[in-house]
């Protein structure tokens, strides 16, 4: 059987260059030809300036130095996401990349807290989370090695300029012999017998043939949809936001180690602090607000002067019926779209790449590889969807048409059960394969005022005084550690000081 050797990636945004970088690294020495086609005429969306902690493993697997990446992309550290006005107007909470309290021998820490709060009163759960408290105080330090200790059981991610990140990965990929072709695809040729994509015709007349194509062409899905007509599963009934305005503004105030997502009447607004500017956007549903009002909402709440013209984006929430069809694998926005409320865009790209590497055809393309890839990605998308939807339905808001819409929404059963179990006894129905683990669910449910009525009965075994002393001790230790941590801005400045970045962001291979 013939080995699939020629890989063509269509699209040079974040998804395209992340794919090129990973494949050129993982398949080094196998004699594969990797080509990436991108057109300067087609803009990139610049998806997801905020990331999840998993991105560090992606960079590390490529052998990229963290300081270099951060300097090259004007990155800041990210300890979580602050959600404002979600439960009700005036509320705010931080969804941290870390655990609450410390690991307990018999039950989860938050169960101890629930009992203490019910019986004696206790500070909010956030006060036992190193990452929440560090974020609130604008502090940052790397986690320690012993994850059973306060100040160690958390992760961190980055807020970076995704166009600079793509540029860095382009340089990395080209150094790893990825061939970049500038051009616009005007026609896709299919094999009449198999229906596989055979070649792409470019505007300049060039023909690009390959054995497998990775469609990173964005919302349009040039190969997966326009050519192969794979179909799209529309999730608008659950996540109806369908437009966004994005704009960059000058930085103002303290450089914060977290992203902010503020709920609005017909959507929500993001604020992502980078070293040199702030990224802003307003995601909204056009059924509930006009474009003009949505734009006004964004521009009138910028903290500093705008640096760019607002960019308008259109999307439909959902996913492709198949992420991999015939010899086309869709990664990035061509695979599906979930609003970036929890910074999952780049993460879902990363998941797509990781699974493609693991399931890359050994020999010819095999139906079983396709099936497995699609099963895995479906699960990823479905579970992220439920978590996003939670933000809209775990709320007391009914001050606008959009919030009233969510009040009457019939939820996926998986989400309903999760919310019921939490409200009854603070239990989080767990899963192993998915990005958001119990602490994430706890932070959103509790942060949006979904208070459990009871708690794990095992907690009653602990004598009350002992429980109070334990919680007090963890609270004190957390605050002491935070007090010792440096300010985020100072830590970052020191960390990237002296790192040389060439004009073109050349990254070592």
């Amino acid at each position, binding site marked *: 059987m013939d080995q699939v050797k020629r890989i063509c990636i269509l699209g040079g945004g974040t998804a395209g260059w992340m794919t090129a970088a990973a494949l050129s690294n993982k398949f080094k020495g196998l004699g594969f030809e990797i080509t990436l086609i991108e057109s300067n005429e087609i803009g990139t969306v610049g998806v997801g300036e905020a990331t999840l902690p998993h991105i560090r493993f992606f960079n590390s697997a490529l052998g990229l130095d963290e300081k270099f990446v951060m300097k090259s992309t004007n990155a800041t550290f990210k300890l979580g996401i602050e959600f404002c006005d979600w439960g009700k107007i005036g509320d705010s909470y931080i969804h941290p990349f870390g655990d609450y309290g410390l690991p307990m021998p018999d039950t989860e820490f938050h169960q101890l807290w629930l009992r203490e709060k019910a019986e004696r009163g206790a500070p909010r759960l956030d006060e036992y989370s190193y990452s929440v408290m560090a974020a609130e105080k604008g502090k940052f330090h790397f986690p320690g090695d012993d994850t059973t200790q306060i100040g160690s059981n958390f992760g961190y991610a980055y807020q970076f300029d995704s166009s600079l990140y793509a540029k860095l990965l382009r340089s990395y990929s080209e150094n790893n012999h990825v061939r970049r072709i500038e051009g616009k695809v005007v026609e896709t040729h299919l094999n009449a017998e198999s229906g596989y994509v055979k070649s792409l015709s470019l505007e300049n007349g060039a023909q690009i043939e390959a054995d497998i194509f990775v469609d990173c062409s964005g919302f349009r899905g040039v190969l997966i949809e326009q050519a192969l007509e794979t179909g799209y599963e529309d999730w608008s009934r659950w996540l109806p936001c369908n437009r966004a305005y994005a704009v960059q503004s000058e930085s103002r105030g303290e450089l914060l180690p977290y992203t902010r997502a503020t709920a609005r009447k017909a959507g929500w607004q993001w604020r992502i602090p980078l070293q040199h500017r702030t990224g802003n956007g307003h995601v909204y549903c056009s059924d509930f607000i006009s474009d003009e009002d949505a734009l006004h909402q964004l521009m009138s709440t910028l903290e500093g002067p705008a640096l760019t013209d607002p960019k308008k984006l259109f999307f439909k929430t959902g996913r492709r019926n198949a992420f991999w069809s015939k010899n086309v694998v869709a990664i990035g926005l061509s695979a599906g779209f979930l609003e970036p409320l929890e910074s999952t865009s780049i993460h879902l790209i990363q998941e797509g790449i990781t699974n493609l590497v693991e399931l890359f055809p050994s020999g010819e393309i095999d139906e079983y590889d396709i099936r497995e890839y699609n099963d895995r990605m479906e699960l990823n998308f479905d579970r992220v969807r439920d978590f996003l939807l939670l933000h809209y339905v775990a709320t007391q808001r009914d001050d606008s048409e959009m919030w009233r819409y969510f009040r009457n929404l019939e939820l996926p059963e998986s989400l309903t059960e999760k919310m019921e179990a939490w409200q009854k006894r603070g*239990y989080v129905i767990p899963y192993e394969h998915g990005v958001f683990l119990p602490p994430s669910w706890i932070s959103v449910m509790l942060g949006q005022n979904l208070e459990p009525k009871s708690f794990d009965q095992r907690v009653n075994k602990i004598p009350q005084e002992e429980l109070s002393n334990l919680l007090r001790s963890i609270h004190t230790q957390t605050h002491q550690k935070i007090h010792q941590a440096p300010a985020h801005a100072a830590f970052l400045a020191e960390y990237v000081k002296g790192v040389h970045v060439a004009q073109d962001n050349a990254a070592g291979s």
Partner: protein
Amino acid sequence: MTVSGPAQDKDFTIVIYGGCLAGYAARAALSRSLSPQHMIIHIAPNETPACAALYGNSTGPSGYEFFRAVGLEEPDLVTRTNTSFSFGTLFQNWPSRSRQWVQCFVPPFTGVQDLAFDSVVNFHGGNLQSYLISAQAALAGKFAHPPGDPKNPLSRAEYGYNFAVDDITTTIRSKSTASNVEHISGQLQGVAATNGVINHITLTSGRSVAGDLFIDASGTERALMEPLQAEFIAQRSLRASTARSDTPQLGAPCKVVTADDFGWYSVSPLQGYNSLLRVTGAGEASPALPPGFAKYESQFDFQTGTLKKAWIGNCVALGNSASVFEPLTPAPMTLLQRSLKALTELMPSSSNMEVEAKEFNRLHDEDTQNASSFHRAHFLCENAPETAYWQGASDTPICPRLRRKITQFDSRGLVVQYDYEPFNTEDWAILHYGMGRRPRRGDVRLQAMDGSERILDTMSSAISSLVSRMPPHHQYLMKFKEYLEKKQNDYAR
């Protein structure tokens, strides 16, 4: 008629019915993890049901946590019971005479150059067993506790236990003396339930016992669940026979399972004797005993299968009451442990327990599906004997999860895992390769690996060398026991 419980000064009364392992384990685990505000009434018939043998004499590595949860530390197991150590199960003649492997216990494999360890071994045409120290030590009859130092090859082993269920049950009972437990020796006569909720149960003595939550630990009788019209999804009708043979010297640290035309039998080495369990088709005359065993001690027919819902109303089924497996793998013990853990975590605090029941049933369904897949995978072979037992095994349906697992392994050596499976990636990989399955293709990156053969050679040499220096199981256990007894005596003084 006397009606006891719920006690006036208690918030919540739990009534356990069942006199074998599940009942005593539930009593011990719940009394240890719940506050005294939970009253536990344990009703145990005088006779242990025969189906207790279906717990199968062995645990995987999670047995350590299970025994601790019911109050038995490892020193108790070694000094107070006839328990021995186990690195896994040696399958022989499975299903043909030439096939043998140790289904051993290992921690997660360490990848080689980012690739799955088992796929690298297969790529080089190696035998996975040669690189698993727990398998090699089991074959050599050697045992030592795995050290913490990751540089020591033995740190790449995990162990469980071989045990006798009656012995363990008695020991748990003797150690379970919590003040919030009332023990009643008695036999069930009736269950009074309204709308699927038990009000009280009646004993043959005339006594009635009321409670907030009832636990059915009666075994395959399902004495409390049956009156609630619990649906049992039956699979196979089989016969179990047991025997024992006194031995002066403890055998290798593994259970040995041997297949033959009639089915299979296992021999578990315990301190002082070997325990035999044979499984054949229901109603069949038990075949001749293997050498060393004089006569069968008990024989009974049973049906494998599972309750569709293991929590109905205010009644929860545990152990053999919830699902019945052929005790070929450690599944019966693993599932008992997991359901007990789930029950403890989901212990309700009021009569409204719908949410808890729903989640418990979801976990029960997941666990039984996944454990059934693992069990069924042992019978996916082409060269099985053409006899009634093996025909029945291969006629058992293959669920979609197992089909995906087998398809993906056959296709490219991929071990597909679902959420929180009772058998992990390594268990599945060892089983696949042990049964002689080989993937048609491998990961494409295997072609560009550099130096992996040398890594494998070094590894297998280190394992051989260390195993040759390890003490025999019987010697190790004897010395360990002496050490523990001396320590206990010193402490007593």
